[in-house]
């Protein structure tokens, strides 16, 4: 009995402390809110991956590598340069969300890079060469989830979680490739 109480108590105290800490940080962040056109999702422009890459009716089925072209030849998948967006969108004003494309053209005319919120990021001590994985026949979806079905990406794919090394290792084991630490950590 006593043990349960102790556990509960300790958990409660720690949880409260954590909550208080989080509140303080929330307030801090609200004060730091950056851009006036902050989209509720956190992204400055509600870029719908599904409309671009999806294959349902009304979606354009563009290959991932059309925009993220460095993924197959570099360690970085990279962000497409804005000239690539504008290349299409100067003739495609958009049907569903024209106001978002106006935002894009606004950034372009102001010569201001779009301050995208970074969603996928490995820690600094992890080196993930995109090209090697694509060369090995992996699809983007295996790590990033069904991006072509998602409208605005606000979260990492829960399968990966972002800091789940076990998930990387299980795949490496399954495929019989190296699991030596220094393959990714150096």
């Amino acid at each position, binding site marked *: 009995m006593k043990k349960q109480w102790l556990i509960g108590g300790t958990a409660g105290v*720690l*949880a409260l402390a*954590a909550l208080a800490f989080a509140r303080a940080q929330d307030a801090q962040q609200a004060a730091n809110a950056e851009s006036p056109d902050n989209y509720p999702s956190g992204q400055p422009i509600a870029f719908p991956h599904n409309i671009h890459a999806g294959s349902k009716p009304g979606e354009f089925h563009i290959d991932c590598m059309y925009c993220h072209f460095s993924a197959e030849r570099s360690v970085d998948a990279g962000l497409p340069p804005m000239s690539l967006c504008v290349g299409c969108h100067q003739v495609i004003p958009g049907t569903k969300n024209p106001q978002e494309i106006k935002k894009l053209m606004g950034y372009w005319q102001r010569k201001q890079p779009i301050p995208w919120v970074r969603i996928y990021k490995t820690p600094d001590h992890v080196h993930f060469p995109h090209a090697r994985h694509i060369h090995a026949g992996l699809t983007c979806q295996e790590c990033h989830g069904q991006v072509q079905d998602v409208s605005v990406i606000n979260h990492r794919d829960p399968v990966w979680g972002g800091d789940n090394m076990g998930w990387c290792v299980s795949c490496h084991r399954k495929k019989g490739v190296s699991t030596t630490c*220094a393959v990714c950590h150096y």
Partner: protein
Amino acid sequence: MTDGIKRRDFLKVLGVTGAGAALTGCSTKPAERFLPYLTMPEDITPGVATWYTTVCEGCAAQCGMWVKTRSGRAIKVEGNPHHPISGGALCAKGQATLQHLYNPDRYATPMVRENGALRAGTWEEAENLLAERIKSAAGNVLFVSAHMGPSMTELVNGFVRSVGGRRVQYDALSDAPLREATRIAFGVDALPRYDIAGARLLVSFGSDFIETGASPVERARELAKMSAVDEHRSKGRFVYVGPRLSITGLNADEWFPIKPGAEAAVALGMANVIVGGNTAAAGPYAPVLRAFDPRSAATAAGVSEDAIRKLADRFMNEGPSLALGPGVAAHHRNATAANLAVLILNKVAGNVGRTLYLDGGPNTPTRPYADMEAAIRSMAGGKVGVVMIHGANPAYTLPAASGFKDAFGAVGFKVSFASAPDETSAMADLIMPDTHFLESWGDSEPRAGLMTLRQPVMLPVPHFQAKHTGDVLLSVGKRLEHDLGGTTFYEYLRAQHADLHTPAMGEWEYGWQDALKKGLVQTKVPPRHTDTQLRAPHSALTFDAPPLDGDGDLTLLVYPSPRFGAGEFANSPWMLELPDPVSKITWHSWLEVNPATAKARGLEDGDFVTVTSPYGSVKVPIWIYPGIREDTVALAMGQGHTNFGRWADGTGGNFMSEVLPATAVQPAGVLGVNPMTLLPAVAEQPSGAFVTLATKVTIEATGEQRRLATVEGSNGSQEGRPIAPAVALASLKPGEPAESPSVEKGLKELQGVGGFVPVPAHGGTPQAFPLEGSREPPYDKPEETARWAMAIDLDKCTGCSACVVACQAENNVPYVGEDQVMMGREMQWMRIERYYEKVDATQAGDLDVRILPMLCQHCGNAPCEPVCPVFATYTTPQGVNAQIYNRCVGTRYCANNCPYKVRVFNWLRYTEHIPEPLNWQFNPDCTVRDNGVMEKCSFCMQRVREAENRAALENRGPIPKDGEIVMACQQSCPAEAIVWGNIRDPNSRVSQVSANQRTYRVLNDEINTQPAVNYLKQVTFHPVEAED
């Protein structure tokens, strides 16, 4: 049921609440922004390096460079392998030019003096002001510049012609006496060209040719070639003649510790022996040769007559020989005569046209100080209305006695083009910060007939509004209505190379693009000079020992620092923390004193002394050095700055002072002293060179002491350990492969020590990996897995330390500051050990100094591994001892158990404290480690992985081609002493180099560590004692 919480339960609770905190923590983290390019430049792929060809401007040698950039930032410089001078290597200073690019102390804007103080201005304002002042100066303009490329020289000459004035070249380090001597002797107004590699006996008369002078990298490569053992088991001999052993001198096989200034006597004494009675062979110099017979030479130099005769004999008979005349450290009042004497020696030995040529020599600075002296006189005389200074810092590099500061201060309007603060720009009325050479267009002509192009490798660092001086001059010229031939320096430069490409070869633009890519423009071959008759001197020259000022009992040598040059690298923390190749001291200055001299005065390492000359005095700690004569002391140039940036001035050198209260910081004492304080301002006759060997000094202990910030642990002794063994040339056996040493003794000694169970070694070579019985699982396909290994030829290594800085740049190794070095917390992944075996400053004889680059040995049987409680260090299937930073919890057990002392620990947040934009240099492919983490050489894992990735993408299998992966240290090595590759492949270069009877592995016989680093023993001419 027991009361209380079990440890396991408690951890569960902690885990749950911890996860909660982490989750809420995540959601409140400020979002990381990810910025796209507006339009991506053509040659950039994110995550892939873009390389540009350019030319180093770190010194006047002008080595060809390849610059690695990532997303528009320069992150590493390397030698351009197609460049005939650098040959793909760079020196330590060349590596550190990146720290000038990102120097946080650079001027952010043009600066204008107003009411006595400098304030930030705009370029428009600055250029208008300069134009206005030039107009009112009415033709009295003086432009002082250092050595520049041909186009820039042309532009400046055009500018001063248009506005009315003159240009004076001032180089702090200049080879004027050699050039003058060549002109006197052979009527050729140029520096001679040496074929060092072609010589079998090289005698340096105080020429420190692998650290300063015309072309250190090229000459280090040639020295290594000359002194390496060849297939006939023969090698060239190198003799150093001079009062102090520089790092060049430490590579010699023999040392003649002559009295300062006695080079001419020894050279002429040798020439006398060579010609025998036939002094007429010396042409007009026959009387001089008669005056210096070997006996009088021996008396003048303080070495035995016999030694001089023997050396002369060898010089004549041991194949082609070559003698090099005194360099900057030996520029005394008779320096031209001394260089002339060495040329006469070369002539009588038949070396002119064999190892010494009078055409195609280096085109490096030879302008005399006398020019500057005249300029100082005209400034002091009020004859200069506007003075402009570019690339030179005379307020620091000239002694007070020169009167420069007063004369400069008296000029009505002083303009500096310094990109970062220096002592001269601090006095200026207008500062127009120049761009760094990595941000600039330009060209250079390092030797007659070789034109090279310089191109910007990145946009100017945005923190600083710098502007190329060429652009400034063109723009100011326009304001004054002078057309100088272009609106930008880029246009001007292109116009200068209009004849680069003939119409027959296609469009000019293609030729230009091609030249930029290669970095080279082939121009005409200079005419051969075949007339090698000696000519009579036009004025009386004295070959005697030079007069020295003062009546002190010690002669002061002032030498250019291998790290700082004449002071221009003093604000680079890499250079400050690089252990001096000779003394192994970092950060601060020291005075070199012979052990006998120190003992006679009761002095010990670190005792402060006051050094007094007739011209001034300085307080400096001493360092006891057996490689200097008893009657001589030495000080390096380059430190003791007052306005050169935070590190040079001593305000940024202590890490602790930034993170701890001042009381906790150990006082380090004086950081640096400027030896110019002790010198007069004398121009040598007839060359007009600045005299560095001019004065006698006295030293007096002040009673204070400090700990030297040295990285040396054993006073230059191997303490009986066979760390750097050598083998005598005579002991080399024909055609015999390297012996497999026995490991029996070592195994027995280690049995049962702390769970470390040695495994039996098979074959005793790095190929034998993984070791049988090791705890690592057997690798499935060893034939498909490389075993990475390194071979270092100690017979080639010169100890120049370029590898140390290259490694630091490649691997994001932080500098730690003087106070941290004093606590033994230096973090360089490489160090160069220097052991004295035989150094005798009292007589001419054999010199034996062992130099050994020490880095992680990547043991197959690593002592660091079993002691790590968290498996943060282990051996990879490729035999690399890997350090996994994210596993490391910082117990430091591994470092304690490492017999090679190659593991370094990040005690404080060193990397975090590297100021913006210096941290722009970080290599994004290599983790930036924070505090609490152990680190060490990773065999440039990021380079290995990059090549493996490339090989996989090109379906070339798991092992990249031999030579495809180049270590950063290997890349920079001027001596080409380091080889790296897959030792399992018998055809790889590392296998071939390692299959040598000189191969050994450090301490392997003693402790059976099975390192992956093979060393090839140094080869000596004299017998060595324990050849184990």
